[in-house]
Structures are given as C-alpha cells and as structure tokens.
C-alpha cells in the first residue's frame, strides 16, 4: 500500500494522544497531524466505561470528539503500528501503509495484564479486560444473562467497576492480591473503612488472594473461578482490572526502550528529541535518576497537551506537575488521593468525626508526599497545591489533618469558628405585649 507524510504522527488515541493532537493543531495550525489507533473508535471517556457497562450512561455521553471535524487532523483507525524506522523517520502499519513523520508522539497506552491462569489455556467466554469501548460494549451485552461477576484487581479501576455494577444490581466479588483494596495509594488503616463501605453495599471483598483456576461449561463460557485459598466463586462474568503493561513491541530495535520501559525526559522527549512519549506507556526520568509516572487521567491530558505544544519549538517546556492525584466517589463516599506512600515516608493519620471520615498524609522531611482524604474532601485543592509546591508543613500538618468544610486550608480563618448571634427584632405593634 501507499505512503503518506505528516508533520506529526500520534500513536494512540486515548486521553494523552488525542490531547497531544489537539494541542499541536491549536498551537501550530499549519501542521498536518495523523492519529493512529488500534481501536476503530476513539474520542471517548475511558473513565466512564464502568458506568456505561452497568447501563447507567448512554453511549452519546461517552464521546467528546469524532474524526472528521478537522481536515488537517487525519486518522487511521483499527490499525496497529508494526515497526518504527528512526533513520527513515517512518512507521509501517499492519495495513501495509508507510507513514513518514517529522515529529512522533507515542501515546500507545497500557493494557490490562492477563492473569497467568488464562495464559495457559483457551480463554473462556465471559472473561473480559476492563479497557476499551468495544470490550465494554461486549461486557454490557454479556452481563444481563451472567449476573454473578468476579472483578480481579482492587485498584481504582477494579473498585470503581465493582461499585457501579453492584449499584446496578449485579452480584459482585472483588479479588485483590494485597492485604487491602487500593494498595498502591492508601494505607491499610484508610482502606479498611472503605472496604467496609463496599461490603455494606453488598460487594464481597476477598483480599490477600488471587485466582488460580477456572471452570467453563460446554459452550466454553466461564462458570466459576477458584481462589488461591481453595474457595470456588461461581461467576458468569470475570472482569480483569489489573495492571497496565504498555505494548511496546513495535519499538523493538528502535533504541528507545530501556529494560522494557519507555523513558522520557521532563520535557516528554525520548532519547530521540523528535520523538515524544506520553500517558500510560511511559516513565518520566527526573533529575537525580528517579523514574515515575502517576498514570492518572488528569496527568495523561496534561502530558498530551504539553507534548503537542512542545512538538515544534526550539526550547521544549518541562512538565510542571507530576503529582499522583486522583479522586473517586465510591457510592457517596468521596475519596481524594494525594499520592501513594513513597519509600521512607511516615504516615500521619487522623480519623474524622463519624465512621468513614479519615485523613492521612504520607510525610517526608516535613513535606507532604502523598496521602488521602476520605469522606471529607474540603480544602482538597489547595492541599494538593501545597503538596505540589513542596512546602514544609511539619508545623501545621496536625491542623491540615482536621477535616474541614470550607474552601481554604488550615492557615485561613474559617467562618465555622465564628460566634454567631442574632438579635430578634419584634414585629411592629407587638411592643409591650
């Protein structure tokens, strides 16, 4: 098949890739951009898929963009990139087409890790990864006849999916291999009341275990799975919400991948300054050698926008914030995640008034490096930026841990402390009665 040349090629049409394309088009209107994605549909909110699967959301609410709106933004959908040739500055697609680029942005995302138990056998029907829209549609159609669901992975995706499916009336069991749910972002103490909340909703939570065997019926559909503890869980649907291993196979031999990881600088450039990396597929290496990536939606959008704007400038701008901040509303209990516990950080926690209200910080050298607010999230935004600014809060950390209900943090005067007095003025004509 033929060849085509573009100023910028973006591989991956998720949050990071699309925003990279949009921001490049906005910043450099004369540049022609091509988006390549393995899915046949892009431009939807992946974060809404659990609601969509549960039938709480119509499909039109999922989409924010359709291809064809911009004549200088082309798409190749439903195709995968085969190889990258850095010397020729070109990509070959599995459709046979060769695409030349001046700049390349890799936003190829991550994919759920398949549990080893299914790697050894033919995957039965009713087993789905929680990731793309096409699979979400399949799940949505599958669910009504298979109402017992096992969700593997108690991270953000797994717990959110469990909650929405439970609220829609399905029977849900959540399986997490660590000792508590949301293990990468919460301490055990904070996760416990949340876990209780999930259990009160009717979600069965199984921790410190995983799935090691499954049974399928004559039609090849999953009927039950076995926990490592030996307990069999009957299930007609098995959803995988763990891990996100980026698919970097096409980069083989291109010299961009280091120990299986795609590493970029704070300006989101790979070792080749004309190739950028964003979103779930990458690690950012900061000064000092630390590698990290928050892997959140807001980060993906932010990184995408920056890479698009950096694509054709002489002095690329570094990423401002890399906080692992995320939020979730688990059936009425709001959770704000400031970040996971880093190495060597101490935990400062304080339960709030009433069950289910909790604040914890992970502290390092007097600075907040992570933590979570559960139940009461007031002042969360300023707190996020206090953390991002790296301020020493050792003096005021105790105050910040007190749940608030006002807009500002502890340093500000709050109207709740004010004494309020009202003078009742009698109605006219009632004097002296």
């Amino acid at each position: 098949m033929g060849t085509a040349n573009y100023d910028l090629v973006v591989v991956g049409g998720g949050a990071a890739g699309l925003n990279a394309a949009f921001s490049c088009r906005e910043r450099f209107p004369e540049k022609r951009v091509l988006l390549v994605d393995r899915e046949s549909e892009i431009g939807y909110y992946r974060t809404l898929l659990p609601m969509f699967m549960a039938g709480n959301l119509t499909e039109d609410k999922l989409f924010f963009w359709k291809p064809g709106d911009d004549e200088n933004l082309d798409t190749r959908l439903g195709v995968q990139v085969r190889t990258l040739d850095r010397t020729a500055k070109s990509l070959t697609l599995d459709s046979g087409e060769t695409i030349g680029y001046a700049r390349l942005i890799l936003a190829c995302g991550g994919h759920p890790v398949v549990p080893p138990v299914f790697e050894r056998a033919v995957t039965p029907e009713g087993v789905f990864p929680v990731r793309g829209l096409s699979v979400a549609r399949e799940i949505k159609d599958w669910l009504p006849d298979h109402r017992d669901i096992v969700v593997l992975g108690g991270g953000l995706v797994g717990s959110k999916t469990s909650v929405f499916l439970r609220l829609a009336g399905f029977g849900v069991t959540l399986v997490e291999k660590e000792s508590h749910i949301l293990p990468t972002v919460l301490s055990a103490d904070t996760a416990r009341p949340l876990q209780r909340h999930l259990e009160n909703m009717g979600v069965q939570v199984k921790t410190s275990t995983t799935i090691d065997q499954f049974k399928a019926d004559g039609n090849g559909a999953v009927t039950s799975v076995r926990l490592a503890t030996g307990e069999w869980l009957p299930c007609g649907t098995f959803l995988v919400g763990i891990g996100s291993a980026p698919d970097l196979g096409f980069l083989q031999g291109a010299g961009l991948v280091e120990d299986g990881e795609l590493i970029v600088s704070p300006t989101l450039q790979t070792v080749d300054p004309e190739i950028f990396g964003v979103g779930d597929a990458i690690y950012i290496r900061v000064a000092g050698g630390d590698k990290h990536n928050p892997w959140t939606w807001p980060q993906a959008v932010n990184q995408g926008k920056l890479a698009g704007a950096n694509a054709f400038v002489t002095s690329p701008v570094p990423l401002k914030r890399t906080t692992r901040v995320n939020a979730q509303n688990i059936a009425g209990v709001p959770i704000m995640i400031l970040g996971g516990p880093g190495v060597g950080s101490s935990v400062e926690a304080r339960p709030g008034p009433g069950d289910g209200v909790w604040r914890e910080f992970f502290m390092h050298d007097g600075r907040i490096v992570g933590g979570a607010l559960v139940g009461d999230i007031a002042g969360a935004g300023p707190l996020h930026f206090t953390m991002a600014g790296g301020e020493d809060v050792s003096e005021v950390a105790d105050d910040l841990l007190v749940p608030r209900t006002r807009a500002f943090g502890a340093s500000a005067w709050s109207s709740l402390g004010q004494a309020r007095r009202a003078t009742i003025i009698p109605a006219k004509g009632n004097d002296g009665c």
Partner: protein
Amino acid sequence: MDVIAVHVDRCVGCKTCELACAVERGSEGKTLLSAVREAPQPQTRVRVEGAGGVSFAIQCRHCADAPCLDACLTGALARDAATGLVRVNDDRCIGCWTCVMFCPYGVIFPWPERKLALKCDRCMHMESSACVDSCPTSALEIVNVDKLADAMAEKRRSAAMAASGIAADGAVLLDLAK
C-alpha cells in the same frame, strides 16, 4: 476576558455576596425567604475567606492554564469559546470531584445532594453578576483582564515619573506604542 476582581481593602466580610449568589443562582424561588426553606439547600459559588483581620470574596479565577480542565473525566468542565470562561455542563457532571482536587484556589465546591461540582460562571448568561451587584461596599467589580496591561502600564508610568522627578505627562513609556 471579563472576570470578577476583588478590592481587598473594601471587603468587610459581610457575606452578602454568598447569600445573593445562593439565592439568585441556586434557589428556585429567587428570594432569600423562600431560598432558606428549600431542600436541598441552595449553595453559593462565591466564598468569603480571610485571615489576620483581612477578608475577601473569592470565586473561580477562570485560570488561563486551568488544572480543572485537564482533570475533568467526563468533559463536563469546558471553556466557553465566546467568553473564555470555564463552566460546568451539569448534564455531564457525575460528581467524581476530581476537579475539586485540582483547583488550586479551592473554589470548585462539591454539591453531593445534586451530585454536581459547583463553580462560578460569572453569571455569564445574565446582564451582570449577582455577587457584584449585591456587594454593599463595591468590593467586587467586573474587570477586563486584557485591560489590566493598561493599568500596569499606567503604574509603571507613574513610578517612572516619581523616580525621575518629571511632572505630568513628561514620562514616555518606551515599551508601549502609545
């Protein structure tokens, strides 16, 4: 872009703006008497805060590089093309509060009863803003941010005049083609 500015020296912390906002923008009845009886209780989009004897009203700043826009998971938050203001599309908001977490000023408020993120839209579809109109000390004012550059230029001019001892219009701003 027109935004609401606060004269900190004029704000007395009376919270009239909070009431006016909640009544005008949050209530069904549009009067204080009916608003206080409504359930769920009407909420305000402007808050008066302060410390050390100084108070001021604060609402959405409509940041140029707004972190909330990146954070929104559903496309509910978007910048209005005509006015440049950041607003919430209630239909799309699912109440995940991610934007609340990303607002550096703490001026996006969760409203759990309605599962909505509440923020100031400068009453963009009204003739003027409820808080500005109601402020008894005129501490709130709508200003055009593009004109702030002119105000800054004026400040530089007067500073230059003061420094050089030139009276009246003798000073010329070299960085402005005026």
